[in-house]
């Protein structure tokens, strides 16, 4: 086993110093991507498997692209329609892949804790690319990177996360990232779509998380507002009367953002349902950083892959 091997399973337990280094590394990789050649083959010879048990476009492509940009060889494995359908367990599937000589597994799975489970059993490094309704740590990092670029620091900032927080791994990872960097996070949605005891669950000792069902309250004075997709595939039928009912009260519109800071930024992890959780005129407005989020995803994942293989991400990019 590589003694320097690391896993990125969640942002909750990731030390702030490591998170900061990853974000600095991502910044360095942004410059690599902007330079001619757009490549830094520091992981040449490293074999990466993207194992996706749930449908994904942007995250899978982003990881594939990031792996190639750092010189690793990546294979993608969509677990739907494979031997998984024949009853093979998650562990057996990944053991099979590991036997082929993989160094690093990027896992997306519908079950919370799936990446932790794999990490306990595998020699290879594990990167959590989304586990059920738990965390999506690279998304949280890219959200933080996207806000750090214009702001420089998140300290003292107020960030509202609006929508289906209960089923959102993005919300959990973003909350840990933002609060560890000194921001205050307001989680907002209908009570039926908020996690029980959310502030206690996700709040750091400084109490930097608050919860409200009122969008106006959440948006008031916000420096940034993140809209979340309704995860209807994870809901019980009574979680939501209808998407229209949600839209009536929580769709981000210019009018509803009036209480936020004048230069407040708007984020969305994608995929967007335009007109449901976010109005098109907001998604496409100058305050929207949604496209920057996607672009930053590649740089963040380059940094994460290097870090998992024991490299310092800043040095790797320089």
């Amino acid at each position, binding site marked *: 086993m590589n003694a320097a091997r690391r896993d990125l399973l969640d942002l909750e337990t990731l030390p702030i110093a490591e998170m900061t280094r990853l974000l600095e590394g991502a910044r360095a990789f942004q410059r690599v991507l902007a330079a001619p050649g757009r490549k830094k083959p520091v992981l040449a010879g490293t074999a990466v498997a993207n194992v996706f048990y749930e449908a994904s476009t942007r995250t899978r492509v982003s990881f594939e692209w990031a792996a190639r940009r750092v010189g690793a060889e990546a294979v993608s494995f969509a677990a739907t329609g494979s031997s998984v359908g024949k009853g093979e367990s998650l562990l057996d599937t990944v053991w099979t892949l590991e036997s082929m000589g993989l160094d690093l597994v990027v896992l997306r799975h519908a079950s*919370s*804790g799936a990446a932790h489970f794999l990490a306990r059993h595998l020699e290879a490094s594990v990167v959590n690319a989304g586990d*059920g309704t738990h965390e999506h740590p690279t998304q949280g990092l890219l959200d933080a990177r996207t806000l750090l670029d214009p702001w420089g620091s998140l300290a003292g900032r107020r960030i509202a996360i609006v929508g289906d927080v209960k089923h959102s791994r993005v919300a959990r990872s973003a909350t840990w990232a933002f609060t560890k960097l000194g921001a205050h996070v307001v989680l907002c949605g209908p009570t039926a779509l908020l996690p029980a005891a959310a502030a206690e669950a996700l709040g750091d000792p400084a109490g930097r998380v608050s919860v409200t069902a009122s969008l106006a309250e959440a948006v008031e004075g916000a420096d940034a507002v993140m809209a979340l997709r309704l995860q209807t595939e994870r809901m019980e039928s009574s979680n939501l009367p209808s998407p229209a009912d949600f839209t009536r009260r929580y769709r981000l519109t210019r009018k509803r953002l009036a209480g936020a800071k004048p230069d407040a930024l708007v984020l969305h992890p994608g995929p967007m349902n335009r007109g449901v959780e976010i109005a098109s005129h907001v998604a496409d407005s100058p305050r929207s950083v949604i496209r920057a989020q996607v672009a930053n995803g590649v740089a963040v994942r380059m940094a994460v892959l290097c870090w998992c293989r024991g490299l310092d991400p800043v040095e790797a990019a320089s």
Partner: protein
Amino acid sequence: MNDRTWLFVNARLADPAAGTLAFEDLLVVDGRVVARGAAARTHAAAAGARTLDAQGAVLAPGLVDVHVHLREPGQEDKETIATGTAAAVAGGFTSVACMPNTSPALDEPGRVRWVLERAAQAGLARVHVIAAITPGLAGERLSDMAALVEAGAVAFSDDGRPVMHGGLMRHALEYARDLGVPIVTHAEDLTLRGDGTMNEGAVASRLGLSGIPNACEVTAVARDLELAALTGARLHVAHVSTAGAVDALRRARARGVPASGETAPHYVALTDVACDGYETNAKMNPPLRAEADRAAVIAGLADGTLTILATDHAPHTPQEKEREFAAAPFGIVGLETALGVTLTHLAHAGRMPLPAVLAAWTVAPRTLLGLPDPLVPGAEADLVLIDPERAWTVDRDRFRSKGRNTPFQGHALKGRALGTWVAGRRVFELLAEPDAPAAAALPTITTGGTR
């Protein structure tokens, strides 16, 4: 001299029915209790009894577990009647009541008799059958309850699945009352559980796991207590885990509703924090709750609201438990840790005196199932010798159960069964175990009698 004739000396005899714990000898002849105190020694020689010097250990009626899953028939990879009863006697239990959620379910007289025969063949702990309230535990219609009682069933339950239909439960209680047997309710509102996998609260929200609210149990308990009041039937509430259910049971008993309740050692010792790290060996239903619930369950035991301790022993195979949290089945084993966990967390922790803890494992379960008190002269000698001070560390690889799914692996406990006797025959002896501590620390056995 035969292997069912014993004189126990230097034993602290626990008589939980009388509430006493004092040095007293006990004579067992041909498997039956014959005499206590001075009379025991007087008659021992004539009977040719083997003398067992307990060296101050506690001799008690054998423990009774009213809630175990023996998995046979149909799930023998998890447990069999033989391995389950071997685990039972190693834990100090002389009787267990098995739940009917086997495959097929224990919903026909022939299956009840088959289990009883298999248990007799195993020759370890006694097995009492709790038969299914509804065929296949489907909750659709009543089983042939009278025929099941004739075949030997001592109670009815659809444990593992609640009887969601209130009208059906009412009639089940009425028939149970007519037949003189209790209904053991698995009180859970499935619509409130939904896809929940652990206790609803901050831990579940942080782990991104769907929660099971306390109301899921409390509302179901409230319904069944009202139905017990309505029908006058004997209701027993299985695996109470919430403060609300303890409170509902306390109020119902105060107004004379014929209801009792049990809780399990894990609800006494653990909270939902044990699920951290997606620990599937801390996943059971009802789930480990919050600290306030744990405290309420202990208070309920201490004030006599919860009169029974039971394990809900639920073995699963390692491959079933070694899964993603949501995919792993509910349930943990308990027979071989139950006594140690409850003595450690109740008696040694100063929350209940030792005789009260033993009463919850002996007197109240026997009353529920209609079993005789082994300490009454003439009764079959179902006994356990306990060293309440013995320190040991849980090692699941030494379990007799096939199940390794315990949340107590590596826990340091105080209190253990040294020997177990069913009808006077010794069916477990810690001394004979390969991992037994130094023999000098154990009770010694000498051959008494004159021949």
